[in-house]
């Protein structure tokens, strides 16, 4: 555990010094700042302000997660920084898990900064404290952590550029896969065809479980069991992805 923490801490330190990360956060803040003016001119209603705010956080966090997940681990292996680390009494599993938790910490920092900006914006627009908005941001964070786990998994066998392509594709599929099953049933697919669609549903992450923005925007509380289920799903799917990543990384010739 100690080695995982040391690697996580170092990952956090090195990634939070990245200029690209600051660039993304500056753009995110500009977006939130711009929304104040937009709210006065066009949006007018609080739900619209919330909708744009949460979507903005989601979009910029997705960029941060994609950037971190596809570059950080791959860069350490490709540039052979990993030689120093694995020549010490550190296992490959500890290294990979350390990278994952370190990247999740960076994402947590980015989410906290943008979340604070969002809550301030809603309060400024006379919305008070948006607790449901905070829950929606937390759920988005879970989704992005899963996103990082997937990107790490892909990075163990693929280049950085291909990891971006694969991870983005899975991100997209993850949002349509539950709808796909519903549509398949509606149009009357049966037998092997329906099984194939259902297989897709179980293989790809169901990211719609984490999307509670619409509920938050309209002040509809999400049942506790749904939050707990989404959390358990993220933990289980994430553990599976990281286990697979460790298995592949263990076999990789450095």
């Amino acid at each position, binding site marked *: 555990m100690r080695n995982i923490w040391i*690697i996580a801490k*170092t990952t956090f*330190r090195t990634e939070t010094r990245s200029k690209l990360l600051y660039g993304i956060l500056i753009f995110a803040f500009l977006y939130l700042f711009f929304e104040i003016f937009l709210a006065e001119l066009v949006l007018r209603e609080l739900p619209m302000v919330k909708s744009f705010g949460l979507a903005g956080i989601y979009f910029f966090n997705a960029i941060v997660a994609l950037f971190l997940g596809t570059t950080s681990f791959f860069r350490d292996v490709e540039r*052979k*920084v990993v030689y120093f*680390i694995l*020549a010490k009494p550190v296992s490959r599993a500890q290294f990979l898990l350390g990278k994952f938790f370190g990247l999740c910490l960076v994402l947590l920092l980015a989410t906290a900064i943008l979340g604070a900006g969002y809550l301030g914006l809603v309060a400024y627009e006379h919305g008070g404290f948006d607790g449901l908005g905070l829950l929606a941001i937390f759920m988005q964070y879970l989704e992005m952590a899963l996103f990082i786990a997937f990107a790490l998994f892909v990075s163990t066998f693929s280049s950085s550029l291909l990891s971006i392509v694969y991870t983005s594709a899975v991100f997209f599929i993850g949002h349509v896969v539950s709808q796909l099953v519903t549509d398949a049933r509606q149009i009357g697919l049966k037998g092997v065809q329906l099984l194939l669609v259902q297989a897709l549903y179980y293989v790809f992450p169901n990211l719609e479980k984490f999307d509670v923005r619409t509920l938050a925007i309209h002040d509809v509380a999400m049942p506790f069991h749904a939050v707990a289920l989404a959390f358990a799903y993220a933990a289980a799917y994430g553990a599976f992805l990281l286990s697979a990543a460790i298995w592949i990384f263990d076999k990789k010739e450095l």
Partner: protein
Amino acid sequence: MLEISHLTKIYKGRAVVDDFSLKVDAPIFGFLGQNGAGKTTVMKMIVGLLEPTSGEISLDGAPSASAASKRRIGYMPETPYFYENMTGLEFLKFCDELDGSARGPAAGARKGHYEALLRRVGIYEARNAEVRTYSKGMRQRLGFAQALVNDPEYLFLDEPLDGLDPVGRREMKETMLELKKEGRRIFLNTHILYDAEEICDEMGVVHEGKLKYAGPVKEFAAGKPLEERFMEAVGAREKAAPQAHTSPRA
């Protein structure tokens, strides 16, 4: 003592290290070979970065890649790369923490140790500068410092003199001789014969993954220039001197 027994590494059907056996007990052992001869592959297997296809490597009787052995090892890879936005001091601390030496109540006192190491390798003035600002020679020196951070009994250095200017090479060699006096054992990969002749007590010659010679440097030279003997050992002068062959002494 380092013992390598019937070590083989196969990459994509080709044996890059082929039934390699060697016993090393010399204070400084130079491992010589042309580029691509298999020196780095052997060293990576010793320190646990690569899994051998077959064979065993032990350090004083314990597997060299075990956590216990790794605590007694310092390793400097060829052309070291670092986290570019960390300072030299931060990088040393990171490596020390991973080794376990910096844990517990002594952790706070380790800063003096890192600074002494950076002084020893000649980059103390740059200790708080980010690694991205370091020259190639400074990176070599930092790589050397991190190999020493856990006070290792065994040092495995892969081409440590590459990228250093003449003054840097001299200083590095003097440091290695000092380390020898301190009782540490050094295993050195190099393709520069002059360096091996100057500081190594024993040497090994590897060619196409096979050990061609292992033993004292003077015995290998046998009164001839080292370069000439090396060329013979790796078969580069087979046509000119077909009788020149040496046997592994492992």
